[in-house]
């Protein structure tokens, strides 16, 4: 008969890696019931907490890498347990101590990030090539705003439009902005959630040094993941900046009357809340305000919008890992959007752009539905 003895050493490893909140868990299972995975497959979050408490964690299990860090469970947890911190701690234990297996796809991305500073493995000197003929100036001390587009729009040909649209808007408005040199690196948010703490520390330190040397005060970001890490994680490492997401920036300009539209966009647009903009940072209204301001746009809402919004599936490092068909949240969302008659799924996160574009194509809905970043829609209408 298999009898379990509490294995304190394993619990200690998780506690030391930042899993302290697990002590508070009283095993009610609300996290499991709230977790979106359980609409498509079984993922017993509560049991992971229990196993961690008792030192019974299976570090080799694929469940270690399942969580998308969407924060739905944390928002509801009756004991206020930072469940994502516990999951991250388990991943750290695997990644740093080699007591489990890091999935191949994640290992490659991690290696790219550590090696060349971006998950795609592209050359650092090509980081700003997306701008092409837009001729965006380099950030220099005294420039008002640093625009930091995120690695995905910087390198991925399918998502470059996000960065190019943002630059076009800023140019049109005459904003004094610039791009940081090609020494910039991935912000490190996702690789940190994927347990690679050392890599994160090195990326963060490199970026902070670069920003500080360049005299950066305000950073404008396209990715909620960059937003989150710059705003919530860099300060304790010495990097203090005003961080603004593009949707916030645009909403403010619209409210002040500085951003005017010249074209109509007669479309039914449905907005999907990115987890790191919404649940992680409580930004729900600004993206909607921007979309509503675009002439002709009819804004639709998912039944589970805002705080209840379903993740695209790309957080916590999952963007680099394959999710089998039938389990993809962005597929569920795309189906919902189609049923509601949406012509555009609007997002405000490069990971969402990737996942939704993939879903729309693989589901054969490319004719009916477009996936656009809020900035892309604005650029089309000014």
């Amino acid at each position, binding site marked *: 008969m298999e009898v379990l003895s509490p294995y304190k050493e394993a619990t200690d490893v998780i506690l030391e890696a930042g899993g302290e909140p697990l002590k508070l868990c009283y095993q*009610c*299972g609300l996290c499991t*019931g*709230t977790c979106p995975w359980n609409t498509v497959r079984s993922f*017993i979050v509560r049991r992971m907490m229990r196993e961690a408490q008792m030192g019974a964690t299976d570090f080799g299990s694929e469940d270690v890498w399942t969580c998308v860090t969407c924060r739905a469970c944390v928002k509801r947890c*009756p004991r206020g347990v930072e469940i994502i911190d516990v999951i991250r701690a388990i991943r750290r234990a695997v990644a740093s101590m080699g007591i489990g297996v890091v999935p191949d796809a994640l290992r490659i991305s991690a290696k790219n990030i550590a090696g060349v500073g971006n998950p795609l493995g592209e050359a650092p000197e090509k980081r700003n090539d997306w701008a092409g003929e837009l001729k965006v100036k380099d950030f220099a001390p005294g420039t008002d705003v640093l625009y930091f587009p995120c690695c995905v729009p910087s390198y991925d040909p399918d998502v470059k439009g996000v960065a190019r649209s943002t630059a076009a808007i800023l140019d049109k408005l005459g904003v004094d902005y610039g791009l940081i040199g090609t020494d910039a690196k991935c912000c490190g948010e996702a690789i940190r959630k994927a347990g690679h703490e050392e890599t994160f520390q090195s990326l963060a330190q490199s970026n902070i040094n670069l920003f500080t040397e360049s005299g950066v005060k305000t950073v404008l970001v396209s990715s909620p993941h960059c937003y989150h890490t710059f705003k919530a994680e860099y300060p304790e490492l010495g990097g203090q900046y005003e961080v603004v997401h593009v949707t916030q920036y645009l909403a403010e300009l619209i409210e002040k009357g500085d951003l005017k539209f010249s074209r109509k966009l007669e479309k039914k647009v449905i907005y999907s809340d990115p987890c790191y903009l919404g649940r992680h940072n409580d930004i729900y209204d600004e993206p909607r305000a921007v979309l509503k301001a675009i002439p002709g746009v009819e804004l639709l809402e998912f039944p589970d919008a805002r705080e*209840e919004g379903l993740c695209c599936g790309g957080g916590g490092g999952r963007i680099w890992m394959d999710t089998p068909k039938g389990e993809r949240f962005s597929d569920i969302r795309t189906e919902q959007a189609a049923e509601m008659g949406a012509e555009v799924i609007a997002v405000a996160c490069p990971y969402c752009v990737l996942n939704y574009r993939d879903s729309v194509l693989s589901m054969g809905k490319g004719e009916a539905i477009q996936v656009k970043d809020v900035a892309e829609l604005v650029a089309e209408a000014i």
Partner: protein
Amino acid sequence: MEEIRTGVYICHCGLTIAGVVNVEELTEYAESLPNVVVSREYRYMCSDPGQDLIKKDIKELGLNRVVVASCSPRMHEPTFRKTVEDGGLNPYLYEHANIREHCSWVHDDKELATKKSKDLVRAAVKRVFHHESLVTREIPLNPNVLVIGGGIAGMQAALDIADGHNKVYLVERDPSIGGHMAQLDRTFPTLDCSECILTPKMGDVGHHPFIELLTYSEVEEVSGSIGDFKVKVRKKARHIDESKCIGCNLCEEKCPWKTDSEFEAGMAKRKAVYIPFAQAIPNIAVVDADLCAYIQSDGKKCGACIKLCDAGAITPETLLKQTDEIVELEVGTIIVATGYDQFDPSVIPQYGYKKYDNVLTGLEFERITCAAGPTEGKIVTKDGRPVESIGIVHCVGSRDENYHEYCSRVCCMYGLKYAHLSKEMANADVYEFYIDMRCFGEGYEEFYKRLSEEGVNFVRGKVARITDEAQTDEEQGKLIVVSEDTLLGKMIRVPVDMVILCSALEARSDAENVGKVFNINRRADGFFLERHVKLDPVATPTDGVYIAGCCEAPRDIPDTVAQAEAAAGKALSLISKGTVTLEAAISTVDEAICHGCGRCEEICAFSAPNVVTKNGTLVSSVNEALCKGCGSCAVVCPTGAIAIKHFTQDEILAQVSALTEA
């Protein structure tokens, strides 16, 4: 001046102090301080042998000052003042050093804790040097008692006091007494009908020669202090001649204006003129002025009730002219028993309360199972279908940091009661979704076992959501309760016809205001704060004001009744003594310095100082019966004319300078 001879006594408090502070070293140190003639340590100073040490030393060594270093003065300063008095000294020639809460409980480093204890003892010794004999005074206590709230707690307290032939004013905000208990159908775990055990008590209260009932009334203002409170009560206009109404209810039958019945938890309607429920006490109608068309139209519309009332209790005069009345009362003690509000689960959107017709709160289900309720005791869905299966969701708003962190104490048990009633009355399949079952009272665990025997399905898991989106044929037309079964480690979906949310008990929405009126503090959870959680559970920091029942914390009926009787006992004990001892450490005015500026009058929360003319000049005069010795007046006094006895400049500065010595 007499020689100051101080005795210092160090308490071990078992190991609570002695485990951290080196009491031998501290005792030796104390003996070295000026004016200390003896210093002793003892395991429990508060015990009789400990106190005897002090008394003996006072006699044999001629002590005229005593310092005890032990726990908080809130705990034992009164004990040792009494000891000193028994030993033949004035009780104010005593000083208390707190080396437990302020030292041993909060420090680990023994060496530093011992050093800090020395500092605290030194400060007490230097301070007690300046203490003076003070005299306490007795004033007569008004034996009348005010009880606020006519629920089970208030009624029980009122009856206990009135049965001893003492006058009780019972003030109830609603038109009838009865409180939440009147809304309940049956009571756990005995399942006796709530009305059957409550209504006789309501009748007793209504007819009691020593109880004056003020329903539809609220206390607006309380002044004075223990023994002598003055209370203003707003008696709201019922728009009925109370002396004529015979409770025939014809007016309500014919009144055409409807709204949700508060008593029926919104499950049925009442009229603009109504008697809240059949057993209401007093059995007198009341007019909802906001709803009454006659009142709203200033007598131009309706008036049906006027025509129907043969007793002449409703007239154009009562409807249009009757106004609120302010009643002034004088009482010696006050018992606050204002009860609780039920948590509104619509703030948890995933539970679908108010969205789905058949998601109910506990109070709503009470009315459904009650024979006198809107369905006449039939468990049916809103559209009248029989209920074959029921989900009961525990901890809704309780044990949840997002709403209330505390356990509401009654939900596990009333959840079991609903399970039983669902089985017995509807033969329904019952699923109880719980996190932990808390069945701690008399007969509670046995009731839990009984429900297991009755075949209730217990599912351990906090419900994630309630939905009507069916995934299978079996789920069609049902409400589906979604949860993890944490014992199986699997997600489950349970289709049911009705869901009952065991909603938390929460502090009254107006508890803050009520607290201000009666000078009662609240805990972070919003409920009223007792003076000591274990040893003084019905007293409040305001002398003469007691609390009972759910206004203090969620509790069941047996505990509520016990608390009400405890509060009544407190009041009766004061009445029996007949006098109140006034604090001697109160403010005193040096009339030679006082300018009569009146700042003391402005700041005082108890209206103790008054500026008066004496020998042609304005000076402040302190009413010793009202002064609490809080010290506010001394702080604002620009000339330093006001001092607080026992907290004089000499005393405080001696203590402070002792603490700042190296």
